[in-house]
């Protein structure tokens, strides 16, 4: 430890002034920081260029490490799997038998479903994926929940596109760079997802809580119909997410709604699928309308 240098100015006016000036610069820095904060709240996308440059610079490091890390990420689970291997094996055999029967039933149902759809002449809306990539890093030291995806606008990614994994919804694209994109995760505090209960399509909103859970609020305020184990899926309203993507499972009730655990744990998602915006036309129209509103307001 270096001893503190004696920097007391004494009676020298010049030394006193220089200390005053250094403090002034320090305070100026803090004020500038506050101003920048204000700007970034008024215009959240304002500094996205800088963040994109940052993400693009470190992306090669993240990508190469995540290639290695992918193998070791689940090492703990793999080691613990060796214990109880025999009893697990027996249980899995039983499960397999049961699953075989259920698959046959499901196949029959699927055929019937297709036949009925043909009867109704329903056009099947199967959103195809735009890109598939690995989540290469995340803001693990901040209270924001944003992850970085290993592909960007070069692969056709645009802000707003939903990102999902086989388990469920991961989030949506926030900013894109040429080879990276930033994904606002479902559990981020600023992310609101329109959802519905899978069993009876009861509409609700899921707001992130920043810790892998979401706060589910029913649209009909006053009633609290949720119970543990309810599956929440995207409702398709808002036009961003296509309906039917699993989002969360209710783990406990609160006074006004429920707390749900997000199904797609980003730490375990090996590959994320980027989908096109569900109703791109609607979204564009909304943007156009809001732009018109702004023009009208400024004209008045």
């Amino acid at each position, binding site marked *: 430890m270096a001893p503190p240098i004696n920097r007391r100015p004494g009676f020298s006016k010049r030394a006193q002034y220089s200390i005053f000036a250094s403090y002034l610069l*320090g305070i100026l820095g*803090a004020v500038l920081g506050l101003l920048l904060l204000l700007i970034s709240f008024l215009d959240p996308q304002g500094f996205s260029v800088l963040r994109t440059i940052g993400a693009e610079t*470190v992306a090669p*490091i993240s990508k190469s490490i995540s290639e290695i890390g992918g193998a070791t990420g689940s090492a703990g689970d793999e080691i613990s799997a060796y214990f109880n291997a025999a009893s697990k094996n027996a249980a899995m055999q039983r499960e397999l038998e049961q699953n075989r029967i259920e698959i046959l039933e499901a196949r029959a149902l699927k055929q019937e479903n297709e036949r009925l759809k043909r009867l109704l002449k329903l056009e099947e809306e199967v959103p195809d994926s735009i890109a598939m990539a690995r989540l290469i890093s995340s803001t*693990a030291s901040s209270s924001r929940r944003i992850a970085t995806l290993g592909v960007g606008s070069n692969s056709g990614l645009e802000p707003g596109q939903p990102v999902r994994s086989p388990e469920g919804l991961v989030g949506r694209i926030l900013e894109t760079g040429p080879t990276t994109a930033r994904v606002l995760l479902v559990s981020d505090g600023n992310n609101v997802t329109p959802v519905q209960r899978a069993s009876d399509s009861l509409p609700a909103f899921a707001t992130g809580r920043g810790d892998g859970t979401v706060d589910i609020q029913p649209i009909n305020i006053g009633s609290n119909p949720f119970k543990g184990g309810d599956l929440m899926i995207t409702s398709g309203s808002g036009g961003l997410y296509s309906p039917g993507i699993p989002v969360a499972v209710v783990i406990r009730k609160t006074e006004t709604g429920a707390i749900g655990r997000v199904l797609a744990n980003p730490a375990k998602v090996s590959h994320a699928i980027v989908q096109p915006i569900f109703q791109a036309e609607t979204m564009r129209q909304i943007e156009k309308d809001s732009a018109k509103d702004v023009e009208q307001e400024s004209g008045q």
Partner: protein
Amino acid sequence: MARSRQSRIGRQPSQLRIKLIPPLTVVIGSMITALPIITDYPILPPMGLLVILAWRLIRPGYWAVWAGFPLGLIDDIFSGQPFGSAAFLWSVIFILLETLDRKAVRRDYWQDWLIASAAIIIVLIGGMLIVDFRSNMLRLDLLLPQILLSVLLYPFVARLIGAIDNWRVAS
């Protein structure tokens, strides 16, 4: 080696090394978010902050009062916080530390750790308030593991920075 034949007396390390190493290590610390660690809650210690605190407490004379601002801006690029968050918080910490330096009579290792811990707590809670001040959702239970981890990690970072500092000024 040619260098070993030269006299070691009065030799100075290059000014570039003396001037650039501290900010460079802080920027590398800020880039820790590039590691493929994907979590559901904030757990990774803010390495940029730990490194700059270690430097600031080991070498009080090196840093200008305004140094928190530019390095905080670089940290904001990588941390995912709203732009200006660390620039503001680090500036405040630097002003506080400068005031503390002028008031302090003596300093020791434990005092440094205490000061660093207080600074870490201020910055982490401040950062969460900045993110969530609109939804008014300060959840300390979420932040506690990160604060604990950062406070416990600080002595190791200080050791590392001390070693780098020795190399920096060694001739």
